[in-house]
């Protein structure tokens, strides 16, 4: 039995046909359509010309002169058991985080004993004087600064 397909279906299969990616049967159906259809034959020619054009513009990316050596050095380091930069960072991060947490904890513990944020450091006598002044009754007295 001979199968036939129209131009629309053939066009949809042309790219895979050119790449030799159709099953044998489909390939033979498309081939027989192309043989009898000048429009589809031209479309196939267009695809083959595009493919040739693609080959002509193939680019090779520029590679740094020591790129190959860098890769081989990393490989040699790995084989010698030396940790990767990333691995070093991975190991250091928890350690640094733990140290930071300890410092925060100690800092928070020392906070009540911290000196006032501004002004000179008071002597013990001055502190005593300050406490007495703060605890003195203020009824009936006005501070000039309040106005």
């Amino acid at each position: 039995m001979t199968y036939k397909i129209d131009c629309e279906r053939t066009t949809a299969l042309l790219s895979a046909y050119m790449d030799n990616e159709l099953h044998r049967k489909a390939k033979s159906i498309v081939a027989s359509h192309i043989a009898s259809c000048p429009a589809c034959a031209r479309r196939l020619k267009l695809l083959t010309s595009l493919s040739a054009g693609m080959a002509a513009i193939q680019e090779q990316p520029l590679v740094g002169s020591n790129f190959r050596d860098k890769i081989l050095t990393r490989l040699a380091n790995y084989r010698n058991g030396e940790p990767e930069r990333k691995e070093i960072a991975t190991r250091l991060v928890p350690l640094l985080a733990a140290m930071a947490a300890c410092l925060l904890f100690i800092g928070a513990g020392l906070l009540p004993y911290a000196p006032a944020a501004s002004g000179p450091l008071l002597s013990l006598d001055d502190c005593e004087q300050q406490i007495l002044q703060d605890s003195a009754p203020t009824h009936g007295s006005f501070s000039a600064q309040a106005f």
Partner: protein
Amino acid sequence: MIAKSEMRDEELVGRCAEGDNEAASELVSRYMQKLLQLAQLLAPEQRGNYEDIVQDVFLKAFKNIHLFQGNASFKTWLYAIARVTSQDWRRNFFRRSLHLLSPLTEHENEFISLPDAEPAILNRLATEESTRLLRQALERLPHKLKTALILREWDGLSYDEIAEILAVPSGTVRSRIHNARALLAAALKEDL
């Protein structure tokens, strides 16, 4: 004794697994440029990091070389590692906007018609100017289509191999390549 440069990939892989540094060096020489090209396609926004990506690919490959079983070619296996590695780099880059990982979903399920092959287009493709036009049109292709097309045209990979590398069905590869070619042809026609 056969020179390393004349050995098949699979033979070099076997030697590499036994710790042969020269075999590793030969594999690096064979694939470093191809992988750079692939990294540019798979992680286009990582300009400046392509060499680092390729270094990571080789290191992952050599670390896991004992897992290579030869079911696929070494090239396909290596390219699949390149895809995963490029995704990792992109994931880190777009950590806060993961949706950008697949920005190009257009043309994925649609079928783009191949334009009529008028003699003018065919004549245009025969000229030297076509090289410049084609390069421009290729640059403008959505990168998923461009990647599939380049793996086919420049690497000569089969649809099944490309599907394995990109982790998509073979039918998707077929439609991406078809659509890429249809868009290239349309771009050349527009420029007439």
